[in-house]
């Protein structure tokens, strides 16, 4: 699980172009949106694409993303349970 969390942090920084944020600055339970990493609605759509492309998880209802993308911890748990690749 810790490998998956690390992988997610790397992907988020790279794919969302978070230039000024280092991996070790993201705690597993930090909020990804709002006062945490400050991701926006376009970032949320990018994360939905990333789930599909990299882990074979299709979110049919974008509202699901609100819970799944709460933190790295929550995201990693969801991916571990639902991934098809």
């Amino acid at each position, binding site marked *: 699980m810790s490998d998956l969390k690390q992988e997610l942090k790397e992907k988020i920084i790279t794919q969302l172009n*978070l230039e000024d944020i280092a991996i070790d600055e993201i705690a597993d339970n930090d909020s990804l949106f709002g006062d945490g990493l400050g991701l926006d609605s376009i970032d949320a759509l990018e994360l939905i694409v990333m789930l599909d492309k990299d882990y074979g998880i299709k979110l049919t209802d974008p509202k699901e993303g609100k819970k799944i993308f709460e933190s790295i911890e929550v995201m990693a748990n969801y991916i571990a349970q639902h991934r098809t690749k």
Partner: protein
Amino acid sequence: MKAQDLKIKEYCRISNNRVLLNAQLLFEDLGGDFTTFIKMAYKKMDTNYPKFFKMDDLSKLGFLASDILLKPITQDSEKPKNIALVFSNSASSLKTDRKHQESIVDKENYFPSPAVFVYTLPNICLGEISIKHRLYSENSFFIFNHFNAGYLHDYASSLIKTEKADEVLCGWINCDVEDYEAFLYLVSTEGSIAHNKEEIIKLYTTK
């Protein structure tokens, strides 16, 4: 206000890995590619706007050139400024359009990026600038075959004469696979350079 009373207050050029303000060199990095250059220029100009790194190349180019001209005007002002934006280019958003097209060409590997797609219009660049500088002003992005000084002159003059804007940030922001170029100038009632077609062409062609 007569059109001949208007002036060019300041102008900025970013091309050939150099950043110039009023023909004075602010930064150059002749060795790197565009991505490296624009990132170094962003840091050198003390831009401090993390969303910059999420922008496509056209928006980065327009944003940085605009920021150099607008930051001294808007950063300490509590009241939003009525500065219109009138930009132009020949490549529209083609560089990003191609990137998006590459992501959808293979039906077996169809993963278009929302973050790329949102930049498949050139006027998104104007939105980025307006957000940063709190501009609620007129803005237009024209597509021309070549830099069209006469059109930009007439349009900017009209905006100020009809009191649609107090000042107008005008120019050319072009970005394609092989090349990029930004030339922006601020039309105002203040300044020392006459705002006419001949002066605009002279500033644009002096590289």
